[in-house]
């Protein structure tokens, strides 16, 4: 391991030289964590995530991380990282699919406790019969946990979003967990060109004493007490406290918006937004949409693309404005339920223009022709 010097997030993200590597998404996680100044990582294997935390274990052995171990299961891992974060250290973990579901109780707990944990989710199917294949349905279950949710299109996004997630999560006024989502296998197990910073630089350490909640390290005030004591009396006072507490978590997510703009360039990314037909997608559905756009241009059909980078907070105002004049907004998704199209319908004018599909699931790929068929249909109208 080379000696690392601390640089500002702005230098690392915007100014540092970048070297191109031809690596998998899992290896992109390793490269991000090498530079993230992580104190502690806790792992539990589940396909398609296993390799990424294995690689994080390898860099622990090289000295990039202070503590690393394998937990008993996903629930134990997510509980353990909560304890570590309450103790004031920067933590990272990853899971996916059934692992996400097993640990589900902990995600609103993280948010409620204002823990700036960064967790990568490598999405896969969750239903019986068992599947290990790509599917983004688990994201539907996490929409209202209170965590910030970023969706990576490819390994480059994954690398960048993980590093930036720490900085967004740890802002005093935000201080929420951030889930960085990438579609399992499509991103984790394929090689891609990823531009990474020099390995001799790393992010500044987490400063827990500016947190909006006390750090439980026996030195910070108030000392030696349970930090989030139960407010469980059956009376209006307790209910009001809980209500205000939940509102504050929602408010904290709102406060993340300017930082997502600052570090990720916005909650969405847009190409050709004036087109009559827009494609709106997240994750690898964006890649397939790009392919469909090329095919549409070859047929003389103008199509625009909205890439959703932040699922929570949701870019409602942006989508309302961007879709205002569109004839049709096609929302391709890698899941059965169409959670993204539902979200979009809730925020735009004239939701009948939202085309909830094409959708594939259970590990199926999404040929661009499926998207192209929808484009042709609306181009004819």
């Amino acid at each position, binding site marked *: 391991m080379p000696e690392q010097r601390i640089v500002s997030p702005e230098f690392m993200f915007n100014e540092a030289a970048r070297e191109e590597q031809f690596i998998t998404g899992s290896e992109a996680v390793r490269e991000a964590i090498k530079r993230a100044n992580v104190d502690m990582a806790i792992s539990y294997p589940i396909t398609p995530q296993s390799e990424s935390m294995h690689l994080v274990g390898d860099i622990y052995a090289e000295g990039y991380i202070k503590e690393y171990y394998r937990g008993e299961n996903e629930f134990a891992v997510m509980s353990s990282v909560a304890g570590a974060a309450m103790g004031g250290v920067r933590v990272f973990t990853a899971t996916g699919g059934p692992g996400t579901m097993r640990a589900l109780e902990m995600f609103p707990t993280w948010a409620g406790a*204002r823990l700036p944990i960064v967790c990568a989710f490598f999405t896969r199917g969750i239903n019986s019969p068992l599947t290990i294949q790509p599917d983004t349905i688990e994201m539907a279950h996490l929409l209202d946990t209170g965590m910030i949710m970023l969706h990576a299109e490819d390994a480059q996004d994954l690398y960048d979003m993980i590093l930036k997630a720490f900085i967004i999560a740890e*802002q*005093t*006024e935000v*201080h929420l967990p951030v889930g960085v989502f990438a579609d399992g296998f499509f991103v984790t197990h394929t090689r891609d060109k990823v531009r990474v910073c020099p390995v001799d630089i790393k992010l500044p350490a987490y400063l827990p*004493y*500016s*947190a*909006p*909640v*006390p750090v439980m390290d026996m*030195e*910070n*005030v*108030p*000392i030696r*007490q*349970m*930090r989030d*004591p*139960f*407010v469980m*009396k059956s009376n209006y*006072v*307790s209910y*009001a*406290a809980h*209500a*205000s*507490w939940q*509102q*504050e978590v*929602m*408010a*904290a997510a*709102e*406060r993340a918006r*300017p930082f997502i703009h600052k570090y990720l360039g916005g909650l969405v990314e847009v190409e050709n937004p004036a087109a009559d037909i827009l494609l709106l997608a997240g994750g690898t559905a964006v890649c397939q949409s790009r392919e469909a756009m090329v095919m549409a241009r070859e047929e003389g059909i103008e199509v625009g693309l909205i890439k959703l980078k932040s699922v929570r907070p949701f870019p409602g105002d942006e989508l309302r404005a961007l879709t205002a004049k569109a004839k049709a907004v096609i929302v391709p998704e890698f899941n059965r339920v169409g959670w993204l199209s539902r979200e979009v319908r809730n925020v735009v004018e004239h939701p009948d223009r939202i085309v909830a599909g094409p959708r594939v699931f259970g590990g199926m790929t999404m040929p661009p022709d499926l998207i192209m068929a929808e484009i042709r249909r609306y181009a004819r109208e």
Partner: protein
Amino acid sequence: MSQYRVMAGPEGYLPPAAACQGVTLPEVGWALVEGRHVPEQEALSAIVDKLLNAKRPFFFPGPNLLWEWKEGVAAKANALRKLADTAGARVIPMPDYRPKYPMINPAIEINPNHPNLTIWHNKIDVCVFAGVHCHYANVALKIIRGGTDCYTIAICGEAGHEDANISLRNAGIPQIEALTAMVAERRRLS
């Protein structure tokens, strides 16, 4: 900027978080007055007005100021005490965030989970939060705005509070001493 105004309550059964109504935190050098961004100096003047026109102003210093846990805290706490004394305000400390069971003594205690009880009991019409961790301050400020008519002021050392009627950000000893000097000067002239 949001049309929502963060006014003294009682706003209702469950008032919203101001951040969810579009109120944003100010940049450094600026402050919030009733949901609007204003230069810090304007907010300082507004705080002085509220303190001097209050019938029963109270300060609620939190654990970040009540425990000498890092260098500079005692000096900041002393500066705040001087401001409270100069303004003729009483002080009820919030040393930690535990709910008080079986019942709070609202004459001498305050807690972020039920701050309204202390405000009602003492008929507090203006209160000042300082040194309270931001999450707990925001939890309390919404409850106060919902159920009481108390005007809330946050002297925040971090990024500020949308849910306070007036909020400073990155406030340290210079801002507190400026407030003390302004209060003293207004008292001298009145």
